[in-house]
């Protein structure tokens, strides 16, 4: 228990001194596009674990009816290949996300924003007990998301609680992302960003804790991004046959 709390405090403290920039790859982003805009996105994950290999491909569409509200629908598909022998493909858990930005402070070349966020996961996937991918269970996530972005650095962090009616997968989630622009800011945009993203999950009933680190790179054009990331565990305190070895992500987004 002390170890989990220690890790959470450590990354929260790191949050205070970290530097970064740009829309994150694995983490959610603060709202920075205007009202009446859409973003289509996909971020395919190849997840290699002791239990098997999984390919998760979500198709997301976000809509901003106002400058401080966004709604997203994720329709994901999964291909699974368990070590135990079973394999297949199916629709995974569809996810509906809403975000509301309630605080914003702007200055020249920088912005700080805080949002509340909810994710409603629908039990459309198979019961594969793949947390975050396909569980076949209804889940409700409630969190707070904050971000500071400037032309030189920025931070994105998120803290939230995932609730399930039977309590089996209730967990606390904390994420923290840093980025680094490699090119001078220009408009129309042409940018290469590096990302350093931490994700941690504490599943109470199973007493599982994972702290994952992802290293990513993103090319951002005027209205699109292309991104790659590799994720490895730093703390992998779960059952031995469920340990994550690594995940690879590839995707992109287009705003219109």
């Amino acid at each position, binding site marked *: 228990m002390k170890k989990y709390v220690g890790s959470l405090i450590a990354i929260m403290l790191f949050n205070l001194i970290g530097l970064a*920039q*740009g*829309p994150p790859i694995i983490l959610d982003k603060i*709202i*920075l*596009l*205007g*009202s*009446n*805009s859409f973003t289509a996105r996909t971020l395919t994950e190849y997840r290699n674990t002791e239990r098997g290999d999984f390919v998760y491909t979500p198709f997301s569409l976000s809509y901003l009816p*106002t*400058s*401080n509200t966004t709604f997203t629908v994720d329709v994901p598909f999964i291909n699974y290949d368990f070590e135990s022998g079973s394999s297949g493909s199916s629709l995974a858990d569809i996810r509906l996300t809403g975000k509301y930005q309630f605080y*914003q402070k*702007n*200055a*020249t*070349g*920088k*912005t700080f924003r805080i949002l509340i966020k909810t994710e409603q996961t629908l039990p459309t996937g198979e019961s594969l007990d793949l947390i975050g991918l396909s569980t076949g269970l209804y889940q409700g996530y409630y969190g707070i998301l904050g971000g*500071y*972005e*400037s*032309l030189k650095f*920025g931070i994105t962090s998120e803290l939230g609680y995932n609730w399930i009616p039977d309590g089996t997968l209730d967990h606390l989630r904390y994420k923290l992302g840093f980025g680094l*622009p490699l090119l001078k*800011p*220009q*408009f*129309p*945009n*042409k*940018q290469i960003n590096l990302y350093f993203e931490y994700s941690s999950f504490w599943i109470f009933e199973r007493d599982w804790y994972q702290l994952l680190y992802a290293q990513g790179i993103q090319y*951002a054009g*005027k*209205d699109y*991004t292309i991104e790659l990331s590799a994720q490895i565990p730093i703390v992998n305190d779960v059952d031995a046959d469920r340990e994550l070895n690594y995940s690879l992500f590839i995707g992109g987004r287009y*705003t219109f």
Partner: protein
Amino acid sequence: MKTKIIIMLILGLVSVSTIQAQKQRDDFKIQVDGLGCPFCAYGLEKKFKEFKGIKNVAIDIETGDFTFTFPSDKKLTLLQVKTQVEEAGYTPVTIKITRANGEIEVSEKEKE
């Protein structure tokens, strides 16, 4: 000789109409706060493209200077510009409009 005169007349007319067309556009200069990343500046441009007829859009990410021109007969106002910047999710600090007839309109902060 006759052909030369006709060509010169045509060229003259074209340049006059071009100058006329340029004069019929208002110039807008806005200082925008909150442009924290170049990718996000697209949101500002996209929001203003809702104004049909907007041209010469330029954004200096580092200074927050946002400039464009707009047909003067459509009389885009300071308030409309301010609202549009806010709906893009940013803060308009100062707004300056130079009308085609030479008149200058500025937001309150610009006057200070």
